[in-house]
């Protein structure tokens, strides 16, 4: 029996197409891996898969039918964790799912199931952190801008949240690491890239001359508030770090007093 490896373009759609082709061509791969990723098996038979939205959709619908309630998105979130080897874990899970086992997403005694559950929780937590730690700067012309660096590619997961909350506001959430953003204007969000970057690539701070007049005032008052709401007698820096990881500090105006 030959050792088969499936390679794909690194997108979720491409990956789902890969699963479709495994069934279609009766392949039982030893590895499914992004074209750009590192491959362990040197002498394997490689099959490269082009993403196909129809095939991907069929697999996704099939998965959705067999998953319950809040677990419906679990495999997608787990995929976004970008953990090495996550594809095979998802693939094995899907095999079990399609071969008629019932409710397997609660079989936490199984290593794959537990791993996928935890990976998806990590991604959800990172999305939550965007809702917590995004800070908009009001720029001339009225746009509210935030540049930030999520660990996983979660900006798309929080667009709905910000869209509901800031419905009457023009805003732009920019992922500094992945170099793209989502802009909300005129009632609809769209993906954008930025060529002339008039903000810091490190902490997303917009160049001062481009800030709206009130911006300095609100940031200063926010810092004032942050300092004075603290209770000295209860100082607990470890707890602070635990809830608000260091890697976000440079994006937070209130933490700039200390930096």
């Amino acid at each position, binding site marked *: 029996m030959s050792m088969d490896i499936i390679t794909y373009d690194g997108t979720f759609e491409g990956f789902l197409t890969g699963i479709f082709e495994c069934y279609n061509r009766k392949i039982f791969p030893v590895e499914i891996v992004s074209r750009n990723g590192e491959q362990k098996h040197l002498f394997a038979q490689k099959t490269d898969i082009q993403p196909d939205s129809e095939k991907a959709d069929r697999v996704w619908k099939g998965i959705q039918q067999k998953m319950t309630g809040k677990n419906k998105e679990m495999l997608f979130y787990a995929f976004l964790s970008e953990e090495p080897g996550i594809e095979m874990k998802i693939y094995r899970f899907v095999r079990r799912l399609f071969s008629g086992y019932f409710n397997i997403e609660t079989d936490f005694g199984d290593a794959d199931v537990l791993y996928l559950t935890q990976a998806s929780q990590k991604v959800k*937590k990172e999305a939550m952190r965007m809702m917590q730690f995004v800070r908009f700067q009001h720029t001339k012309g009225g746009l509210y801008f935030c540049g930030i660096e999520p660990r996983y590619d979660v900006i798309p997961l*929080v667009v709905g949240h910000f869209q509901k909350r800031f419905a009457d506001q023009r805003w732009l959430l920019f992922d500094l690491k992945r170099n793209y953003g989502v802009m909300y204007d005129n009632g609809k969000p769209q993906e954008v890239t930025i060529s002339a970057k008039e903000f810091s690539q490190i902490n997303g701070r917009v160049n001062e001359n481009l800030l709206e007049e009130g911006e300095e005032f609100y940031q200063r*008052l926010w810092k004032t508030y942050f300092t004075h709401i603290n209770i000295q007698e209860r100082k607990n820096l470890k707890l602070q770090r635990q809830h608000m990881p260091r890697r976000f500090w440079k994006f937070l105006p209130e933490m700039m007093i200390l930096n």
Partner: protein
Amino acid sequence: MNKLTVQQKLEILSDAAKYDVSCVSSGSNRKNSTKGIGNGVACGICHSFTEDGRCVSLLKTLMTNHCIYDCAYCANRRSNDRPRATLTVDEIVDLTIGFYRRNFIEGLFLSSGVIRNPDYTMERMVQVARKLRLVENYNGYIHLKAIPGASPELVHEAGLWADRLSVNLEISTEPNLKLLAPEKNFPSILSPMTQIRNEILASKEEARRFRNAPKFAQAGQSTQMIIGATPETDRQIILLSSGLYKTQNLKRVYFSGYLPVNLYDKRLPALTSPPLVRENRLYQSDWLMRFYHFKAEEILTEDQPFLDLDVDPKLGFALRNLHQFPVDINRADYEMILRVPGIGVQSAQKIVLARRHRKLTTEHLLKLGVVMKRARYFVTCSDVVLAASGWTPERLKHKIVAGSVSKNRKTLDTQLSLFGNFQAALPPLH
């Protein structure tokens, strides 16, 4: 008198408001239906954490720290000589919107000292909320303190604009309240509390019949008690708070360890630091009642009216009731699994789901997040029988307390348990 800048006022007034522990912004599903700004997120969101590790979710400030009263435990009492300030309605509205639009906060928590009289004070607080809703088209979170003694009409209007209302009980028995806050009394606190309860229930009833019925304080009501300023026992406090949950339908009872602010006042105990460990044990007990199906009487017995500061109340319960253990992980009811020290709500839920697929071993338990160092004395699994049989409670307690790597790790950790049920609310994809 020099005119203070908004910044100076905020310094004074947020300083004065910080001891009010309620920072929760959860429980509201208010929609941004007016296409304005803001919405409520049921789980609440913490936007920052101060050096004390506490969650910053709301702009929490007093409207004014002037006060006509003289409560012994309060830094703003009229006999204290300290800087005073008052924010105008417009200034509060402005700050709230400015902070909210930058995603600094989930909303506003407005409390106040009493100026002139309770109605005058309450009326201005209601104005803030009214302006936010009607002029600014703001649908974010608002928590208003109801001033004891304010008229029912004002409390009613406050509830129409606010997501949450609260009246602070502060001192948990009437004689002690009379002693420390002679100008206050239980009826002036309990009557708005009861009014709020009734209006919340009525508005829920309305909502069932008419879809667009106005909502009243949809995120419910809460209260706060000061711990350690008066000699009440933990049992008295826990019984009172569990009674309040039941009779007044409260969403939360907060405890605030007494900070010695007025050392000169001899009616107060001479503490040097706030009783944080005790406060934490009380929160843990509260947690056990709300999420672990414990009854108040199970946590504190009549002959042991104070919580053990060395061990958390759940372990305390297990040690007093060794005859109910070990618990068989593969067969016991969910309720019983919840009672095992070292097993949290999430692990317990996973256990009862996972055991339908296969028998669980200790290895599984570890992976599901069970703290085996603790749990091992109280459970049996399919692989090993780990029973605490033959151990005396004292020996077991010693072993567990000495065995935890740093036994004080959790004692300062109020927030950790407070936000244990803090879950991501993700919008559906596709």
